């Protein structure tokens, strides 16, 4: 009996129901959200600490024993992801206190946000492949509605692409689950991993692996199925963009890490080579796409794609160091990317635009904001001693160890081009003079803007997290290393879930 493993799902669901019950009052909704996301972070830390003691936390829902019932299971990677979900949820809840128009709150902004967090947390904790599908759908449904809140033309166009591609991916996922069930007769991921390791390896397993790769690849925005992401992520409210940027694609990455370390490990020469090429092309196309953009959030969206490539590279190389690097990269990326999106929201509040050509002069008026941008931006590009440097260093070092020259070369080049994009934003938004005819009254006003201060709290908080990961990397590295140990040793996971039923 360990409630900490279900609390990360229950808390957002409860908060969603409560905020819905208080839909008439934005005041209550905001405070419930703040309280609930804090509780979510707290439960994540509780889960992490109990996993540091015991290794795995497993709960069989409704008392039905695995592999017949639905299992909720957390290993170290799940727990890390839950803590990050809590951090991002809290940051967005604080940011939304200031930056959400009342119109959107009336249409269910906060309930949907909590539903999304519940879906994300559920996906991280699901021990059953069909349950994973259900949580994916919960998350997607909430994200569809959040994406279209407001109903502007660009949002509708972006949403159609987003919805179509994601429904297509769900259909492939569902078909793959069906075929997998037809093969092994079980849905419990640990049990599937156990059974597949015993059967003679056939071509069918590789077909299934590819179906899962396509399905999760769409959700993680991997090459060549990433184009829904830059078409939609810059359209909704900035708080929603930041939430999506931090968490949604990472759920796809997490699912890939889960199935390609637990289930499809019989023929890594085939599956992980394809993953390697997917990773390389994802990095490259993402960063080249960003180089051509002149919209703040679109540049950042394309960089999500290229960064996903690094995480997949860690998985594809499939050595202990590479997995450590991948896990480290996920931790670093979630925090930094959300932060950059939030900063784009702060700039929008000051100057009323996301278009780089209509922005400028922020450094002169608000140098502290420029510094707050520079830290996550340089971290994203991988400048030491920030968190991104260690993440990239680990992945590239792992690539060099196995002589994957093309992949590591691309990774280095992409790092350079990332720096180019970040410097472009720096030069256009912060450094150059404000173009003529732009209303800068908010930028130069000396009046304290209480909403702006509230918006800056999560930005400062996330920046401190980045600095902490960068300057005090040892414990984080240790955490990632332990998580990688667990991922590369699926027998322990299987034993923890199935117990005496093995």
């Amino acid at each position, binding site marked *: 009996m360990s409630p900490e493993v279900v609390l990360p799902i229950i808390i957002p669901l409860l908060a969603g129901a409560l905020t819905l019950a208080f839909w008439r009052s934005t005041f209550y909704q905001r405070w419930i959200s703040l309280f609930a996301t804090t509780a979510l972070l707290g439960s994540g830390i509780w889960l992490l600490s109990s996993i540091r003691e015991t290794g795995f936390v497993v709960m069989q829902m409704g008392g039905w024993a695995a592999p017949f019932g639905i299992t909720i299971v957390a290993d170290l990677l799940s727990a890390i992801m839950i803590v990050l979900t809590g951090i991002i949820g809290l940051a967005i809840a604080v940011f939304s206190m200031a930056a959400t128009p009342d119109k959107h709150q009336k249409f269910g902004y906060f309930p949907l946000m909590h539903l999304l967090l519940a879906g994300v947390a559920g996906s991280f904790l699901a021990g059953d492949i069909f349950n994973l599908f259900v949580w994916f759908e919960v998350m997607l*449904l909430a994200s569809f509605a959040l994406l279209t809140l407001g109903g*502007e033309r*660009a949002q509708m166009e972006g949403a159609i692409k987003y919805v179509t591609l994601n*429904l297509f991916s769900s*259909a492939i996922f569902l078909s793959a689950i069906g075929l997998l069930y037809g093969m092994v007769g079980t849905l419990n991921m640990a049990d599937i991993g156990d059974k597949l390791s015993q059967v003679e390896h056939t071509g069918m397993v590789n077909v299934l692996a590819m179906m899962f790769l396509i399905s999760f690849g769409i959700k993680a925005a991997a090459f060549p199925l990433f184009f829904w992401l830059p*078409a939609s992520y810059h359209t909704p409210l900035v708080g929603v963009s930041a939430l999506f940027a931090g968490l949604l694609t990472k759920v796809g990455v997490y699912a890939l890490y889960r199935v390609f370390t637990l289930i499809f490990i019989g023929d890594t020469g085939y599956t992980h080579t394809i993953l390697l090429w997917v990773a390389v092309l994802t990095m490259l196309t993402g960063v080249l796409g960003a180089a051509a953009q002149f919209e703040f959030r679109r540049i950042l969206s394309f960089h999500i794609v290229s960064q996903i490539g690094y995480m997949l590279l860690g998985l594809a190389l499939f050595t202990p160091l590479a997995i450590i690097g991948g896990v480290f990269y996920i931790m670093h990326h979630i925090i930094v990317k959300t932060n950059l999106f939030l900063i784009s929201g702060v700039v929008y509040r000051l100057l009323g635009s996301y278009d780089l050509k209509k922005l400028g002069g922020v450094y002169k008026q608000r140098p502290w904001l420029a510094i707050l941008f520079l830290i996550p931006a340089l971290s994203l590009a991988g400048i030491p001693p920030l968190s991104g440097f260690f993440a990239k260093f680990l992945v590239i070092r792992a690539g060099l160890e196995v002589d994957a020259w093309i992949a590591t070369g691309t990774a280095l080049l992409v790092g350079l081009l990332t720096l180019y994009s970040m410097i472009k934003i720096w030069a256009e938004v912060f450094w150059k003079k404000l173009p003529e005819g732009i209303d800068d009254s908010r930028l130069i006003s000396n009046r304290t803007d209480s909403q702006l201060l509230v918006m800056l709290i999560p930005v400062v908080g996330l920046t401190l997290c980045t600095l902490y990961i960068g300057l005090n990397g040892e414990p984080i590295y240790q955490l990632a290393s332990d998580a990688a140990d667990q991922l590369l040793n699926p027998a322990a996971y299987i034993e923890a879930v199935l117990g005496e039923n093995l």
Partner: protein
Amino acid sequence: MESLMAYVIGILFAAAIYMMLRRSIVKLVIGLIILSNAANLLIFAVSGMTRGAPPLIPEGAAAPLGIIADPLPQALILTAIVIAFGVLAFAVVLIHRAYEVVGNDDLDQMKDTDT
């Protein structure tokens, strides 16, 4: 029976993808609906089409008697249908709103966010 179902599923998948590739958003949604049905039928077909009794254990027995149908795929399909129902209801609302905002149901006119 299985091979007939295999053909039907194949045709459904093909039809769904054909519809999704057309320019009208209404046909896109029809394609998505067919796609989710094809996936459900696939689960049904691959998990064995047995003509069996409901999986109930008679009183006093420890295991069900005779041939029983596997209840799990049916539960999966039921869940997937409910989910698809919710998602597609949203998709229909979405294309309706999109049609109102864009004033056109041609997907080629919806590329403002692509460049």
